[in-house]
């Protein structure tokens, strides 16, 4: 009996241990699930916190405002406009020791103005950027403008004062629009180009 009691007791203890383990697991899972829910909610897209931190709390609450929102961010049915870096992606690479090749990849339906390209450097003297003629864009109201579509490749001469390799810092300004009838503000991108050592002057 004592043994039985003991067994029963042991068995009971075993059940209790199992029960405790199950309960503990259950709590752990529930806590984890709860934690996940909190994390998911708090780690929601940044726009959520933007909306919440906005001083204007009077936000539209109907599905018709969904269409207002959709329509207000489209350039044409089903076409949302691109970010400026998606529309105009600029990169710079050495073109020998004394020049840089600047390349803009321009998204279909977007264009860059020739007259609004500016390049300066804080640590080197630059020549005049050599821009291709581009295409003429005529407008009844605004007249003729030279623009670039698809791609712009320009050569930028750099005046070298020493022979050592140069970490050239460029400040590149440009501005463009979408054919759909909207424009991006003048944009500046800072790029660094590693120019190789310049060959010493012969003679």
């Amino acid at each position, binding site marked *: 009996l004592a043994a039985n009691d003991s067994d029963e007791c042991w068995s009971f203890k075993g059940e*209790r241990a199992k029960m*405790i383990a199950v*309960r503990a697991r*259950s*709590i752990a899972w*529930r806590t984890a699930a*709860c934690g996940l*829910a*909190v994390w998911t*909610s708090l780690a929601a*897209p*940044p*726009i*959520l916190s*933007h*909306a*919440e931190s*906005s*001083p*204007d709390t*009077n*936000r*539209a*609450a*109907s599905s*018709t405002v*969904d*269409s*207002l*929102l*959709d*329509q*207000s*961010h*489209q*350039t*044409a*049915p089903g*076409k*949302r*406009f*691109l970010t400026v*870096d*998606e529309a105009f*992606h600029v990169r710079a690479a050495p073109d020998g020791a004394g020049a840089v090749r600047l390349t803009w*990849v321009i*998204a*279909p*339906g977007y264009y860059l103005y020739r007259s*609004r390209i500016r390049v300066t450097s804080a640590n080197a003297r630059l020549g005049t950027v050599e821009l291709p003629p581009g295409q003429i864009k005529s*407008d009844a*109201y*605004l007249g003729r*403008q030279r623009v670039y579509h698809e791609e712009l490749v320009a050569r930028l001469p750099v005046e070298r004062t020493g022979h050592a390799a140069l970490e050239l810092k460029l400040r590149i300004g440009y*501005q463009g629009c979408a054919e*759909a*009838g*909207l*424009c991006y*503000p003048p944009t500046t991108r800072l790029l660094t180009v590693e120019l190789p050592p310049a060959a010493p002057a012969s003679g």
Partner: protein
Amino acid sequence: MRNAGLLRALSLAAVALCGLLGGYLAYRSVHSQASIAAPVAAKPSQDRNAALDDEAAGAPGAHVVPATVPDVELPDLSGRVRSLRAFLGRPLIINFWATWCEPCQREMPLLARLRSQHQEQGLEIVGVAVDFPNAVEQYLRKHPVPYPLLAGETQGLTAIEAFGMQPVLPFSVFADGRGNILAVKLGELHGDEAEAILQALQQEASGHETLESARAAIAERLHELAITRAKAAT
């Protein structure tokens, strides 16, 4: 047994806590309109065409357009600070533009014409130049504008944000006299679009349409016009 009771109590507390938290999060989600906000993540630049055609792509400006004209202040060209809401009390078009934006310049004669054609409705137009005031003044010497203008680069950007938009211009906000926003037209405004919006705005102002039905009618009509325009362009 005490342990089992304790565990049961802990378990119940965990469930209750989760329930409370879930309820709060659901409440917050509904009231913050998270459902109409989308992530702003940019698409990789190599996926350009896909980004252009993908409605679900994280577009710039996936902010929330407010239901009413926000309380935004900007200086006029004399430097006097004006509130946008001070122009309410009549149908209003708030046109965001800049001197570097050619579609903006192209639509300005249309805006001037709309203002004079809809005088009986009391339509007012306010131009918000997201630009330096001296650049605006220089521009106006060649191209005078008959409607009030407010200008400021930083203040203009703040105003754009308050309207849930991105600094991509032009865009025009159409509001009724009470300040309810009925439409936001991104990109160059065309005459047929403006007339369709103003007609719905008049219907709403006269009580023939509810605000919601007027918004829906405008969205539908703008969509139709955009399709027609896209077809004509190809």
